[in-house]
């Protein structure tokens, strides 16, 4: 187990370097950041030269990357063109996104698995068909449509919860964005759970559990659901990273100053330091979540052992 974790951690190093380098190259492929900074106006050559020197923009790309990574290991993510340190942006953005992700993830887990279980147990019934149709609808409608519609109806028209999440973020104000952010993943979790539950409910060990005279509740939770959750956990783990990085649309709709919000601004202004910095942290989150899922897999399924 220890060896396995070590090996996985070592494997992360090339993945980390590869992904950050790709992001670095892509951001620079967007065009000259100095031109983007000045927008329509032609920059003063002297100022432009100074900025280029300050941000190492005259070096070849690989050298810029090496210098950037060198700074990164001293926890120096550089500064934005407006002079703020990226670390200070990260410090405001990540807590907001973490809160939003926590709310969304909870909704996704509770309702996704709940609906999936009900639907899988009563295959072909009214509940099952409703879940199938509803999840199909949710999956096929783009998030920004669900977001704006729910914001208008629940937030503005009926005023049940705040329409935007202000500062400081409260649980109540995060409820609606959480639902919107969770909706698509929730639908996938429900469908995945439904399939595995339906499949496993025909398994021999479930029949054994019934034959042992266990109450239905115990059969379903201890035997059926416990086994059915193994593939669902895999999905949830990778989805955790996707929720954090993919909150871009939701955060804009509900005016949450989180990762997606700053990332969007960084891309629009071609601010490589912001974009690469945020993505670097996201990459780490992704890798950590993946490792956690693989370890959890062994806990959930004793047939899988890592050596």
């Amino acid at each position, binding site marked *: 187990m220890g060896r396995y974790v070590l090996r996985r951690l070592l494997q992360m190093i090339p993945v980390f370097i590869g992904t950050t380098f790709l992001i670095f190259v892509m951001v620079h492929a967007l065009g000259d950041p100095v031109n983007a900074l000045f927008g329509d106006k032609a920059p003063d050559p002297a100022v432009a030269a100074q900025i280029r020197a300050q941000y190492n923009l005259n070096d070849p790309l690989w050298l810029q990357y090496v210098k950037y990574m060198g700074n990164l290991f001293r926890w120096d993510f550089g500064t934005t063109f407006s002079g703020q340190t990226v670390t200070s942006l990260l410090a405001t953005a990540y807590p907001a996104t973490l809160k939003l992700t926590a709310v969304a993830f909870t909704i996704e887990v509770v309702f996704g698995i709940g609906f999936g279980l009900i639907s899988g147990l009563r295959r072909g019934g009214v509940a099952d068909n409703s879940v199938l149709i509803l999840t199909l609808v949710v999956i096929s409608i783009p998030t920004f449509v669900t977001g704006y519609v729910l914001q208008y109806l629940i937030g503005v028209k009926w005023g049940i919860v705040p329409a935007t999440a202000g500062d400081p973020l409260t649980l109540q104000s995060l409820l609606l964005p959480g639902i919107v952010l969770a909706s698509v993943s929730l639908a996938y979790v429900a469908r995945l759970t439904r399939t595995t539950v339906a499949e496993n409910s025909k398994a*021999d060990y479930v029949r054994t559990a019934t*034959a042992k005279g*266990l109450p239905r509740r115990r059969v379903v939770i*201890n035997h059926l659901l416990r086994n059915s959750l193994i593939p669902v956990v895999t999905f949830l783990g990778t989805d955790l990273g996707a929720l954090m990085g993919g909150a871009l649309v939701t955060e804009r709709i509900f005016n949450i100053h989180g990762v997606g919000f700053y990332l969007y601004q960084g891309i629009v202004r071609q601010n490589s330091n912001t974009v690469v910095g945020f993505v670097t942290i996201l990459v780490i989150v992704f890798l950590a979540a993946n490792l956690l899922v693989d370890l959890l897999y062994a806990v959930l399924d004793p*047939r899988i052992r890592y050596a």
Partner: protein
Amino acid sequence: MSTSVSSASAGSRADTVDSSDAPLLQVNDLHVEFRTRDGVAKAVNGVDYSVRAGETLAVLGESGSGKSVTAQAIMGILDSPPGHITGGEIIFKGRDLLKLGSEDRRQIRGAQMAMIFQDALSSLNPVHTVGAQLGEMYRVHKGSSRKEATAKAIELMDRVRIPAAKDRVNDYPHQFSGGMRQRIMIAMALALEPDLIIADEPTTALDVTVQAQVMDLLAELQAEYHMGLILITHDLGVVADVADKIAVMYAGRIVETAPVGELYARPAHPYTRGLLDSIPRLDQKGQELYAIKGLPPNLLHIPAGCAFNPRCPRAQEICRQEVPRLFQVTENDGTELAGRGSACFFWKETLNGE
């Protein structure tokens, strides 16, 4: 005079068996059907059998003959839908199980009647330790604590002779060998010392040497606890050593019943005859093995008359028109052969091997 004769015959039939009159389990005219998209499959069409305490009934038949479905109906674990019990009664210790509520039936399951399944690897939950799965019986039915349950689980594993039970109680099913896993299944069924055990092909997935060990263990424990045992199998070899009586099933009906020795010596139904003839024999080495011609019946369209008639070498016009009831089999001089019945119009000819 007549009373003494009948009691004597009853005694000889059941010398190792409980002498009290009421059987432990009595299945009367059981009907089960599966309602599928393609139509109604009549899996069980009027099965009668009974088991006494300490007695072993072997139910013999090919795949789809309804032997497992009958067992599932008795246990109350029939998948419903699509399975439906459409008639009959299952009397267990004087109560008709089909008239009980689901909670009453749940309490009987596992505690008073238990089932051993065919493939122990898939029948045990892969994600729980065997100790937890054995202990669950005590935790649920007796309200034992986790600690007590584990102690009981170790005891059970010792009972079915699993070596180093104490060290292995926290192992998972996949860490055991096939024979050991089947012992765990047996231990689980025995946990609460039920009155009746239904073993559904308990040795099919095992290799031959292990089969013998497992069957011996099962027979030994059955004798010790004085349980009724229903042994479902398609293996005539397994049956011969352990069963007291045999019921042969075909297309959801019992076609022949007999005490174990007599069935082998003188079958009274052409289907049983065919089964016996298709056992490979050492003295016929090199010759082509006999096989019953044709295919098992489609349960959606069971042939009219005797279901076996399309495959039967003896089939006459009457077999295609009338369903034979289970006739009492008698000796040629008319004396009844105790416990023998055959659902064949030509049982007499078959019995005499004509």
